[in-house]
């Protein structure tokens, strides 16, 4: 592995995603039980975001299973001034992304799988693919 601490490598990955997709403002990696792993944030409170996004992902998965609409892809919340997107990283972790209302959603769909893949490698989680 590299000389970097794992957390720094994770944060760099988040920054790289922010550079590649227009409109991303903050992002947080958390475990599915809501513990903060790493964050690229400015205004957001990372621990709160970690806990809430874990709840969002849990609710999304459960609701998806209950309604029979297939496996969960992502949880998207659209607000007046932006988006909150929660993506699963394997079974044990997740990525929460905060974007403004101009978020390049197609761009996010294009770029996020590679990011998720690299994050899961960094986290030592076997990629789901």
């Amino acid at each position, binding site marked *: *592995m*590299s*000389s*970097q601490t794992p957390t*720094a*490598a994770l944060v*760099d*990955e988040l*920054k*790289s995603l*922010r*550079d*590649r997709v*227009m*409109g991303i*403002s903050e992002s947080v990696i958390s475990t599915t039980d809501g513990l903060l792993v790493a964050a690229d944030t*400015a205004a957001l409170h990372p621990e709160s975001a970690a806990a809430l996004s874990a709840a969002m992902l849990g609710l999304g998965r459960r609701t998806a299973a209950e309604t029979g609409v297939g496996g969960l892809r992502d949880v998207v919340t659209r607000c*007046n*001034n932006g988006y909150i997107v929660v993506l699963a990283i394997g079974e044990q972790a997740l990525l929460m992304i905060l974007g*403004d*209302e*101009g*978020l*390049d959603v*197609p*761009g996010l769909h294009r770029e996020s799988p590679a990011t998720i893949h690299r994050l899961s*490698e*960094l986290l030592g989680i076997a990629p789901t693919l």
Partner: protein
Amino acid sequence: MTGPSHDTAPPALPAAPTTPAPPTARNVPALLLALRRTEFTGSVTVSSTPGGTIHLEQGLVSAVETPGAPTAETLLLKSRRVGEQEWASAETAASTGRPADAPPARGGDLGTALVAQGTISAAELEAVCVAAAFDGAFALALSPPGSWETAEAAPPARIALRPGIEPERLFEETARRTALLTRLWGPPGELARIRIRPATRPESGAPRIPVRHREILAAATGRRTARDLAFTLGRGVFAVLLDVVRMDARHLLHREPAHPAPPAPSVAPRIPTNEPPPASTGPLPRRVRSGPGARGPGSPSGPSGPGHLPARPERAAAPDGPPNTHRAEHTARTETTEQSEKSTP
């Protein structure tokens, strides 16, 4: 804020009008001109990073939507011209106002509803829409050209300019803006990628900083590009870029490195860390798109880093471009010219 100065499109609707004719055009401008001739109504979706959608009504541009610039909706809400409540009630009115089975035949229904409920005057709405359309076109021009597709059945813009803008006028204005920024600073595409934060040491004995600039300073966290600031503040990207150029000339800003040095590779072999790795031959562990401007602030490095200020000191060569729509830019031009004059020695 003059409206488009062209003749309004004839309202007479041809009965069976259009050859869909997505002509084989060389580029988007050529395509739009061709679609103008056929009075195409629909949308052109440009796929690039970030790309966007150009809405057309009878060949006239009624709206431009792109992640690269705030839409009319963002401008209206962020500027508090329209409150969230009023927005919601206009959405309700727009969707209940038409028969349930009717297709949303024309765009602009939301804008019409906002005017109908007295939230905003038609003239003010038009001014915001014109500004958003020009800014969107400018932002589209900043991204590398990509492929496109036209769609007649695409959902129309919900806040639309009617009549729209002649495509030609849009190109002229975009070219003027690009040329202006290029002259004052350098390639606008590079400028647009810079993330800024306030200079640590405020200019001593500085003349008063205008409110507009103070707001930018307050929002500049080092994480935001001009585009991000435009969304945060509810302003046009072009306007913010001009302000950034001016503030840069007054040394009010620092540039963040566009990238942290690409993360130390997790898959690369170890190399002695005390000497720089051979940049071009080494393994490239990560695909990080770093623009040529991706250097630290003030780093004197290489030909790639944008100089601290305009490369071209020759000033006042302002070709009198097409008539401006934005008064602010007039002042912008003169002011900035003075700045660069001061900083040339």
